[in-house]
């Protein structure tokens, strides 16, 4: 199954890196969508089929927690898994993410293996598939 993934981060380089890491992890990605904040993300979600949201926390206009609340409060979108990708290290903030419905969180800085492990858990994919980090066509010099 090919998953459509929405990457939400106000940092253009970080969006590029997240996409690169996910592709290199061997996930069958149908299409990547991008948004620079929560508001843009909601616009994408209204217009497109998205299977998984990977979002930063600290963003202008609408942060990741507000985006999470909007998704979980919507009857149509609430089943979409949301992964928080964040520099936040406080236990209280991480509990807040999970309590409000995040499927998981990935702490920056992250390694490709950590990212792969989290995504595989959420999507119910085996972690040691045929395509690994060295198996794709994309150069992976992260």
């Amino acid at each position, binding site marked *: 199954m090919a998953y459509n993934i929405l990457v939400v981060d*106000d*940092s*253009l*380089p*970080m969006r*590029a*890196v997240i996409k*690169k890491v996910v592709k290199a992890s061997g996930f069958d990605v149908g299409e990547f969508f991008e948004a620079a904040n929560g508001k843009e993300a909601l616009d994408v979600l209204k217009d497109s089929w998205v299977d998984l949201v990977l979002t930063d926390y*600290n*963003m*202008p206009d609408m942060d990741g927690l507000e985006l999470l609340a909007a998704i979980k409060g919507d009857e149509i979108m609430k089943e979409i898994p949301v992964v928080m990708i*964040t*520099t*936040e*290290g*406080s*236990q*209280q*903030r991480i509990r807040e993410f999970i309590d409000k419905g995040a499927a998981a969180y990935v*702490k*920056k*800085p*992250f*390694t490709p293996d950590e990212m792969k492990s989290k995504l595989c858990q959420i999507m119910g994919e085996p972690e040691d598939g045929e395509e690994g980090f060295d198996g794709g066509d*994309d*150069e*992976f*010099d*992260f």
Partner: protein
Amino acid sequence: MEKKDLTAAMTNSISEVLETMFFMPIDFLEVENFDAMGQIKETETLAARLTFKGPFSGYCLFHIPRSVAASLSADFMGHEAGDLTDDQISGTVMEIANMVVGNMFGLLDETLVFDLGVPELVSSGDFRGGFSSSERELFLGIQTLEDYLAFQVIIDVAGH
């Protein structure tokens, strides 16, 4: 919060971010301010500022020569350095500041909650003068294979 704890957390965070996400080997210099590391003054230098609020508040500055930032951005994004835009290079610099500061607070004490601002580009030269080695100011000079970097932490409002 004691300065030695902040220094240890900041040092570990910088190492983790630059080595984990950028594969950049670094050495910390035994310097207390820019005057002691004249090399960084010789190049065009970018700087990112990130404010934080919490049990204590202030801001962090990350200074990096543009050539090093371009090289890091190219590796980070998988592009040729010559193909990068200024926005991509400055975005990488701001993201490094964001990751270092956020990770630093987690290493300092994961029971504390800090709110980080949105990183912004500032003029590196505007923040080099008047720096002191007081308990509220931290300077970390860093040597890479290519050049020199620096981080500053300035605490405006001390905690309890």
